[in-house]
């Protein structure tokens, strides 16, 4: 047998090789089987998630405090992606194994290694093909995200991207393990057993040793499923990402070592040992990286901003000795609420589980059990609390600094949504499976010529269908994130308060006008000075822990009815539009767009008035109203619909009425705050098409 021509090794194009690998994957049954099985699996999980989320949302409609806990990340995305994770764990190895196992079984591998490619190139291309296959497998779960978005569910781009990235890393990890398994075994079946030993073995680790003290806890960290947990919690950890990349590269390197036939096993073992050693060193290095990003909207992995900044400035080492068993619920609370956050924010923190080798049951006689000792510099203190409200002041006391003043920032409002999941079932149990079967049928008519494969695949084959589906999912999904936020009233209940808007002052309700649902503010029944019903809960829903100041202001100066949009945290630039109609009002028939709403209750509004035919930019500070810009002669007939628009770019404000620019003003500060709708006195107004287009 001749050795490959080394002059060709570097110049050989990779593209045909990649095309061949794609063809191998697409022509196999494993991919289609996984896709078909993933449909009901993902679909049922998604449907269940929608149902449960809807039940919780319905409860939150009567108690806005409950709304704060409603996050689509926990309620919808994690459960739905969880079913995809099961499919990937159990079935994806078969797709990845096929990339190598078929060639080993048929003997084609011996021909393949004769081609002018390095072995590492062969394995890298196979890994790239596995990555492509994983993307195809992700179509069902991506479609669920799309359905959720189209149906009006809230999505945070950062959360969905991070979760998707976590599952992608997990998929690559499974793929790399499968390639390695295929490289060291002679048959696909054996490779599958080896791979499943890794994946199902991870589940066994999770169920048996997780939460146990001592070395078992360390052992539990080897579970592959731990990769996803951190991403599901909304944490983007640099060390975790780097660690997974190292492990993927290590398995790929091992596959490269074991792939070529004709090399002595001893030599392969030596090379493997070197790979493992290099990976271990690299893993040791990346685990020293502490950087991580809390991408969650509710900042669940972080202390409040003021505390985070204060703690970051504490330079001395903080050592914490915890006298709790690892499986003790108090330790789990402490770890989640305090220790993990401290490790993220403080530069030098060491945590020791003093009762590490104790079990929960054996610690009953220990008087110190339950104590947590904090040592900062030369000072120390002890507490039994697991709450940051008590622990942070203790740490500040040890450091000799004062607790910081809270920093005003937007609070997580929660996103309750009640929707019908019937379409999701139709999609996952009928439309998508039929599409996949059709694509499968088309795939069986693929050309056999590898060199023309890619062209045929992209232009004429069933993969085109799948790619169109994938691209469509992405194309529709991406604009969904940047699409205007329109407060949809179609699913609202006539006679009830709106769900997408939080009434703060005045009587706001949904009214049915000739079959169309509209938002109404009814000042005829309202008494000046009365805030809306349940204002304490609503203030808390809007501003979380810093709701007290907002509540005080609202209750003290409830002179002007207004609602606040739930889904807009901080509006700085863009356009806000609304249609309105003045129905009645002896004193006023005012309709305004409220913006720049601060946690202290101050805000700005541009309002039209059917009784005055003017457009005015009002400023409200500590309940006092003053006109900032006043434009006369703006025809606003009563009992007619009008369009009101506010355009904001930094500190520049423009006011439009019925499409005509009337008002221009430059504020001393850029606009930043929540937004909503505004009215005045006995105004009885209808609002519709409240739309927000935020821009950077």
């Amino acid at each position, binding site marked *: 047998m001749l050795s490959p021509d080394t002059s060709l090794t570097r110049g050989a194009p990779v593209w045909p090789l990649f095309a061949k690998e794609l063809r191998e994957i697409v022509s196999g049954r494993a991919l289609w089987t996984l896709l078909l099985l993933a449909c009901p699996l993902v679909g049922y999980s998604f449907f269940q998630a929608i149902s449960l989320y809807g039940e919780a949302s319905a409860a939150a409609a009567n108690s806005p405090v409950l709304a704060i806990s409603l996050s689509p990340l926990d309620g919808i995305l994690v459960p739905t992606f969880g079913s995809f994770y099961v499919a990937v764990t159990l079935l994806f190895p078969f797709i990845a194994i096929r990339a190598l196992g078929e060639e080993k079984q048929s003997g084609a591998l011996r021909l393949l290694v004769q081609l002018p490619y390095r072995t590492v190139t062969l394995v890298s291309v196979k890994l790239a093909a596995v990555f492509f296959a994983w993307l195809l497998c992700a179509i069902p779960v991506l479609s669920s995200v799309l359905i959720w978005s189209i149906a009006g569910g809230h999505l945070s781009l950062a959360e969905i991207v991070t979760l998707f990235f976590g599952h992608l890393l997990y998929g690559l990890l499974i793929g790399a393990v499968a390639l390695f398994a295929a490289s060291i075994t002679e048959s696909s079946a054996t490779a599958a057993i080896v791979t499943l030993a890794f994946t199902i073995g991870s589940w066994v680790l999770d169920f048996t040793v997780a939460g146990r003290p001592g070395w078992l806890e360390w052992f539990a960290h080897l579970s592959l499923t731990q990769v996803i947990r951190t991403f599901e919690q909304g944490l983007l950890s640099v060390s975790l990402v780097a660690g997974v990349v190292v492990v993927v590269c290590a398995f790929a390197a091992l596959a490269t070592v074991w792939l070529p036939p004709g090399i002595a096993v001893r030599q392969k073992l030596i090379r493997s040992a070197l790979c493992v050693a290099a990976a271990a060193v690299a893993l040791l290095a990346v685990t020293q990286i502490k950087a991580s990003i809390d991408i969650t909207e509710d900042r669940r992995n972080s202390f409040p901003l003021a505390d985070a900044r204060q703690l970051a400035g504490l330079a001395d080492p903080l050592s914490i000795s915890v006298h709790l068993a690892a499986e003790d619920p108090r330790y789990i609370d402490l770890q989640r609420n305090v220790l993990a956050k401290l490790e993220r924010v403080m530069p030098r923190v060491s945590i020791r589980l003093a009762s590490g080798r104790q079990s929960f049951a054996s610690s009953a006689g220990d008087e110190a059990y339950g104590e947590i000792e904090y040592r900062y510099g030369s000072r120390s203190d002890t507490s039994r609390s697991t709450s940051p409200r008590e622990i942070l002041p203790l740490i500040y006391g040890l450091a000799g600094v004062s607790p910081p003043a809270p920093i005003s920032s937007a609070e997580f409002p929660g996103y309750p949504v009640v929707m019908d999941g019937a379409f999701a079932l139709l999609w996952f149990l009928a439309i998508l499976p039929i599409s996949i079967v059709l694509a499968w049928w088309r795939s069986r008519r693929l050309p056999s010529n590898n060199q023309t494969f890619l062209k045929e695949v992209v232009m004429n084959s069933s993969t085109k269908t799948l790619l169109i589906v994938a691209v469509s999912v992405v194309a529709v999904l991406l604009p969904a994130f940047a699409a205007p936020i329109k407060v949809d009233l179609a699913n609202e209940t006539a006679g009830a308060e709106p769900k997408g808007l939080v009434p703060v002052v005045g009587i706001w309700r949904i009214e049915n006008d000739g079959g169309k649902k509209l938002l109404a503010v009814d000042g005829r029944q309202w*008494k000046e000075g009365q805030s809306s019903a349940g204002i304490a809960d609503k203030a808390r829903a809007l501003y979380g822990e810093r709701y007290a100041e907002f509540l005080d202001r609202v209750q003290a100066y409830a002179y002007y009815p207004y609602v606040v949009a739930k889904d807009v945290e901080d509006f700085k630039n863009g356009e806000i539009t609304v249609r309105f109609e003045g129905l009645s009002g*002896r*004193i006023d028939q005012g309709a305004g767009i409220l913006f720049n709403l601060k946690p202290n209750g101050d805000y700005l509004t541009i309002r039209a008035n059917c009784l005055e035919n003017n457009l005015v930019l009002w400023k409200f500070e500590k309940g006092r109203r003053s006109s900032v810009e*006043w434009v006369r*002669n703006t025809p606003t007939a009563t009992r007619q619909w009008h369009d009101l628009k506010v355009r904001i770019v930094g500190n520049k404000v423009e006011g439009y009425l019925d499409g005509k620019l009337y008002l221009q003003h430059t504020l001393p500060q850029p606009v930043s705050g929540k937004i909503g709708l505004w009215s005045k*006195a006995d105004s009885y107004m209808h609002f519709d098409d409240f739309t927000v287009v935020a821009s950077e």
Partner: protein
Amino acid sequence: MSARLHAPRRTPARLCALTTVALINVGPIVQAAEVPSYCAELKQVAALALARDKFASIIGAAREGNFLDSKVSLPGWGDCSFYGTRTYTCDSQGFKTADEGNAAHGKVLEEVKSCLRGGWTEDENRASPGYVVLHDERQLASITINTDLTEKGEHIVRLILFLRSR
């Protein structure tokens, strides 16, 4: 001697003098005819707005929402009432067309200015078609006069007198 014998003779010169005096006195009489019939009540309400206890003495029973009865109504106007304790309002009779309503709006403005002349001035920087604002000289209270369309389709003029500072 009878009184008749002592009656002065009305010579042409005296007639001229009497005519002159009469014409001089007719001016105020003609002007007084432009002062509206509701002027006295309007002055009373306007004076209360600037008084210490404001409208407390003329506020009546509570109505629906934030409205309250008024013990003082402007003659010729309807539904005089208070919105809260700081805003007094009355509606005119209804007119069939917008033109009639606008004409009445202009007429009311002149009547109010005529009634309250001296102490109240029109703020032309705030005026729009169908909407005018008058402020008292100390800027403590304002009067707005605007047009509106009722549920019955009638065009009306509405007068609102309110305290400015809260």
